[in-house]
């Protein structure tokens, strides 16, 4: 894709400055939106086929229309900048390199839905991006872009950064709301949905950083233009983070619906596997998505195409796995991740992820029994549908898909009584640091 929409400043070191952003047409979309009715903005976003970029792919305009308009109380926008899904590293680029596109997106979103306050919820580890975003916010206050009656409308908007302190579960939108209220990030039972009862009991819109950063181009150039950059039901350009043993790992902008093969092989993007490495598997959108094999390389990066094969587009950050990697060990490592990050409210998740990790460790260490495979499938199966949020069920997708796609690797461990793959380190898989 020649013109960059979301990544135009990624290779500059001054793109975070208001002056540079405005030299490239920055805040024109906000001025345009100020002339539009609320309904027109929402309809534009609906027609753009913008899908949530935080993992679930919910149509952004449809989510926006759930925010009640008849109420008098202050409503909130919470931007999900908690980026923590393993394999995902795209939002951080926007936060670091192009904070004004994010802020302009917040401004237009607030105008569309009459949102009075906005919090950008930043994971604690990315604290260094908070300073960049905070500076950008201050530039906007100085210009009168934030505060009262913004862009000549009667909309008031204040934007604040909020720093978290280390918890993957706060990426889940209701866990995030709890964190924003100063509590442990334990997800809430839905309904009520945040659109009705969100932060401080007020109607709240939660959108991902990249989703919000897509809003200015939608308004500037129109829904049809945006939709046409993608494929059916998946509009616009998309940021893809490519990682694993490939030649050029990194974040790339490409159309929604591009094939995984092109992302991996094109010299413009991943550049193919590293010398001597052969592709064994890929995970399309963060560790919580089911694993796929190279015969699915021609699949398009859309929510529909990935769901057809039981996986998910997720965050659109693809992790490539090479032939030397042990899939049992990878599954075990992920089980430790989900166990460590489980908030502990729901027993099936808290205990199920822990027991799965133990069984997977045992198989990896050559102490597995054939019955363990059924046990694993059954145990992780019991997590799905029995938890408040989607953290635990993510491990169900991991374990079921790794068992389904690579049964021979599990069998080989059990039969040989040891792991047939080269080790990652001197003493193999270790549980993540507990507190």
């Amino acid at each position: 894709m020649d013109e960059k929409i979301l990544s135009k400043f990624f290779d500059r070191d001054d793109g975070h400055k208001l002056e540079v952003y405005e030299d490239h047409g920055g805040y024109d979309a906000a001025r345009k939106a100020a002339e539009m009715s609320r309904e027109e903005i929402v309809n534009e976003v609906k027609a753009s086929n913008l899908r949530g970029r935080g993992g679930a792919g919910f149509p952004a305009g449809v989510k926006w229309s759930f925010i009640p308009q008849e109420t008098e109380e202050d409503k909130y926008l919470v931007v999900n900048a908690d980026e923590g899904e393993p394999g995902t590293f795209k939002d951080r680029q926007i936060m670091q390199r192009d904070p004004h596109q994010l802020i302009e997106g917040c401004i237009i979103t607030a105008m569309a839905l009459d949102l009075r306050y906005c919090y950008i919820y930043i994971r604690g580890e990315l604290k260094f991006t908070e300073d960049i975003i905070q500076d950008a916010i201050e530039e906007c206050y100085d210009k009168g872009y934030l505060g009262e009656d913004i862009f000549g409308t009667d909309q008031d908007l204040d934007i604040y950064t909020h720093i978290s302190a280390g918890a993957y579960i706060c990426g889940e939108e209701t866990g995030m709301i709890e964190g924003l209220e100063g509590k442990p990030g334990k997800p809430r039972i839905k309904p009520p949905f945040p659109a009705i009862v969100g932060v401080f009991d007020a109607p709240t819109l939660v959108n991902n950083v990249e989703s919000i950063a897509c809003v200015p181009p939608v308004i500037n150039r129109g829904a049809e233009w945006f939709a046409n950059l993608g494929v059916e039901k998946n509009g616009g350009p998309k940021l893809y983070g490519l990682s694993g043993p490939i030649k050029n790992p990194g974040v790339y902008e490409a159309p929604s619906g591009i094939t995984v093969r092109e992302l991996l092989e094109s010299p413009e993007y991943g550049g193919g596997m590293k010398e001597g490495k052969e592709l064994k598997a890929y995970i399309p959108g963060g560790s919580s998505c089911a694993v796929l094999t190279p015969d699915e390389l021609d699949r398009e990066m859309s929510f529909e195409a990935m769901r057809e094969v039981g996986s998910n587009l997720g965050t659109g950050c693809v992790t490539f796995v090479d032939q030397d990697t042990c899939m049992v060990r990878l599954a075990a490592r992920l089980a430790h991740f989900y166990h460590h990050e489980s908030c502990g409210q729901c027993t099936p998740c808290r205990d199920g992820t822990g027991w799965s990790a133990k069984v997977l460790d045992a198989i990896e260490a050559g102490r597995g029994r054939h019955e363990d495979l059924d046990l694993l499938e059954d145990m992780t199966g019991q997590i799905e549908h029995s938890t408040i949020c989607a953290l635990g069920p993510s491990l169900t997708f991991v374990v079921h898909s790794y068992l389904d796609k690579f049964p021979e690797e599990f069998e080989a461990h059990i039969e040989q009584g040891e792991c047939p793959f080269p080790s990652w380190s001197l003493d193999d898989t270790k549980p993540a640091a507990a507190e």
Partner: protein
Amino acid sequence: MALQFSTEAEDQFQTIVSRYPNNLAALLPVLMLAQEEFGWISVEVMDYIAERLDVSKSQVFSTATFYTMLNKQPVGKCHIQVCTTFSCALAGGYEMLEYLEEALGIQAGETDPEHNFTISEVECLASCGTAPMFQLTTSDGEIEYFEDLDPDRVDEILEDLNDRLDELPDPRDMH
């Protein structure tokens, strides 16, 4: 000695509190600030924050113990947090962790006797395309990412840190 924010931290505290409709909502950023200021989050620090925000001690305790970046034990002056999660595991995260463990003579989860270094194994830090990597938190409150690491680069970083150790406060002495 009763705890008290320095003048500079007090200003930041006031700014943070002013961003929220109630004090409890300020708790996470205030705890992060308190860690910068007091080195680690002891029960004494939690009590001080409870008093300053006028929220219950049990509320502060339950939040402080939920979040992994808040150290409930003092760490070393340099806290090296190595990602070994997913993409990092595939790209040498464990090898780098071991290299560090050997170089510093401590294991993940440990602090050296002088309290200069702590190594932790942590989960995905949104740096998967530049693996292997670690996050460095120093006791002066800085958080920095080091990416695309190899043994030579790690040696360089450790050398720089060794030169800075005298300037960095020992978290145990920060309150």
